[in-house]
């Protein structure tokens, strides 16, 4: 099957992301990559737990405020949902709708990121809690910041896809690209769920 071929909703195959060999390779390769990413984040979580509240003048209890983080969580969870909509429309060959929902995903993600930057700013200025303040602060910023960097990368990636393909519609060449980007976005979301639980909720309880 030729990647460049033009399609109509009738001829568009059921799993567009897996129709070409390149697509199938991307699909499996990306799942494997996410496996590696999982181990990376597991390492960061382990370090965070080992260094939690170590050498610091301000503890998790005093630092975190759940309302803000809760809003961030909701934003990111919703953005995962909208990316599902986008992929749903991709499978049905609704290019415009797909682009729209990816655009909403990016908006939600950007809001999340803005709030995260505000959160960090707040910690530094209100609590004097900087990257280098203590072992705890370093571990915290590395874990949450690595996640934030992933969000930033994801935003850039999806935006590039939206712009690049705006004029030319769906094909079997770019369908796997969209699909893989959405996988990445879900992964970021799942990691955040763990951050919310392990860092923020347990930080308030422990």
């Amino acid at each position, binding site marked *: 099957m030729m990647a460049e071929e033009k399609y109509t909703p009738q001829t568009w195959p059921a799993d567009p992301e897996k129709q070409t060999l390149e697509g199938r390779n991307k699909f*499996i390769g990306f799942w494997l990559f996410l496996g590696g990413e999982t181990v990376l984040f597991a390492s960061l979580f382990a370090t965070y737990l080992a260094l939690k509240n170590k050498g610091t003048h301000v503890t998790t209890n005093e630092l975190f405020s759940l309302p803000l983080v809760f809003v961030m969580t909701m934003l990111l969870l919703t953005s995962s949902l909208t990316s599902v909509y986008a992929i749903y429309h991709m499978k049905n060959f609704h290019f415009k709708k797909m682009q729209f929902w990816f655009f909403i995903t990016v908006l939600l993600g950007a809001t999340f990121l803005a709030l995260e930057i505000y959160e960090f700013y707040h910690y530094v200025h209100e609590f004097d809690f900087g990257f280098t303040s203590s*072992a705890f602060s370093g571990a915290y910023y590395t874990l949450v910041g690595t996640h934030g960097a992933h969000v930033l990368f994801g935003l850039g990636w999806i935006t590039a896809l939206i712009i690049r393909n705006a004029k030319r519609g769906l094909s079997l060449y770019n369908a796997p690209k969209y699909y893989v980007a959405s996988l990445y976005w879900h992964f970021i979301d799942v990691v955040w769920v763990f951050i919310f639980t392990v860092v923020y909720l347990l930080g308030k309880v422990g």
Partner: protein
Amino acid sequence: MSSIAEKRSVGAVLWEYLTTVDHKKIAHLYLFGGGFFFLLGGIEALLIRIQLLKPQFGFMSEETFNEMFTMHGTTMIFLAAMPLLFALMNAVVPLQIGARDVAFPFLNSLGFWLFFFGGVFLNLAWIFGDAPDAGWTSYASLSLFSEGHGIDYYTLGLQISGFGTLISGINFLVTIINMRAPGMTFMRMPMLTWTTFIASSLILFAFPPLTASIFFLMFDRLFTTNFFDVTAGGNTIIWEHFFWIFGHPEVYILILPSFGIFSEIISTFSRKRLFGYSSMVFATILIGFLGFMVWAHHMFTTGLGNVANAIFAVATMAIAVPTGIKIFNWLLTMWGGSIKITVPMLYALGFIPSFVIGGVTGVMQGIAPLDYQLHDTYFIVAHFHYVIVGGVVFALLAGAHFYWPKMFGTMLSERLGYITFVLFFIGFHLTFFIQHFLGLWGMPRRVATFLSGQGLDMGNFISSIGAFMMGIAIVIMLVNIVITTVKNQKVGNDPWEDGRTMEWALESPPVYYNFKQTPFVRGIDTYWIEKMEGNKGLTPAEPLDDIHMPNNTIMPVIISLGLFIAAFGMMYNPMNQVGDGKPWAIPVLIIGLCITFGTMLIRSIKDDHGYHIPKEELMNDKHKGGIAS
């Protein structure tokens, strides 16, 4: 692109190699790159052995000695052994599974260039003053406050090359999962392919912890964070855990493909199917799995407590079981076979007893109470050299001789090969066998010298002599390579005459699209089956059709170069612990990252559909591409 030696300018050849995405050419690159670092690491080893030739020899200062063994170990593991294995894997695995290339040719090239630039960055440490000096393990308690920028070369260099390794690992995994020819089921895959598959999954799960801990060390030294700084709540044991969660799987990343190479060689030259193929596969998987369960055997003396030590001791000893299965399978493959002695086979024969010795000392060290005696002595040095040299380096030398014709179309001289083998084998045992005893007699590892009159003189002297024999052996091998290349006598498809797997059905070296028609695989040892039925080539699985090929590209070089440049900015940033921050550092960091990410962006925006070789052209091509017609 024809196989007739056309005259092409040096520039054109260079450009071809810089931009190639062909797995066979990338294999050459890995061979040259890895080979270069192997020689460098070898020279460092010889210098170490000169310093230890006699008691209180002032050949080099103690500082230099620390740098020397650190760079030796780091270079050998990350920049020599792994890339050289990648060379053979790249050259052979796609051919063994009947594929035209790897799954991601672009990433294949990127993986190489990241490794290469990372390696060069690490070694620039020699030129710019301070080399890393905290051992290849770089324990944070030592490395955190090591003076100068040595450790920063280590963290940044390994970070860059580590990304390359991770990418290559994923690439091999996808290639083996997705690109197998029709009929090539998992349980028909040749052992080298299987071991590549398992080693690649180890890479996937072992490198991220190393990446994380190297980031911590880098942040601590360059941005004054406190992951390992105990006075600010940090904890240096975190490094030890992460390093060994990576480090132990790493030794299996090295040894499993080596096992694969020997499995191919032993069954080829016993002219018999590999004995116990399914148990070999099972043992490989089990070793890969258990490899993640034993890291704390490197930390018995750290003080994790008796319960932890006991658990890890038992898990460690358990690995000896699947390893033993493999040893017996090799012996039983030879049993009753019609054995032909060639240079690769000699290495295989030398490998079995050598590796068994290394395995036995490994189990000894796995006994936690005994390890309190052995830890940080020359006994450990002897152990890991028996497994790494007796296992991995033997496999690399054997594999180089065995696959040389497939990679370059010429045969290395068997006569010079025997001389290399004999010198290397004797030199190896001379160097390292005595080190077991040096260790038991109390010589600690990583010391710059020793006193006379403590019974260590003779042992060290013998050890150094052995090292020089190995050095001479390698020089002879280089001479062999040069002579062979100059003579340039081309060989046919199956120069060892007993090839079993699909790569031997192809030209030496194969035409750039490998297979004209995708082959149909009818069982284990496909080519052997065809030969036994009197066929000259493989059975095609498809009619002749256009072949889709990827375009060459320079982007991988640029992406890697960007990180290389950024690393300098990182190192001299104004916050660095050494206190020699430069004003240009941050701009350089940003420029470097822009180059890298900008190129990645261009790559994803610019469509690259590759090109097709039309059917008509293939029909007139005199290359057979594996199919007898």
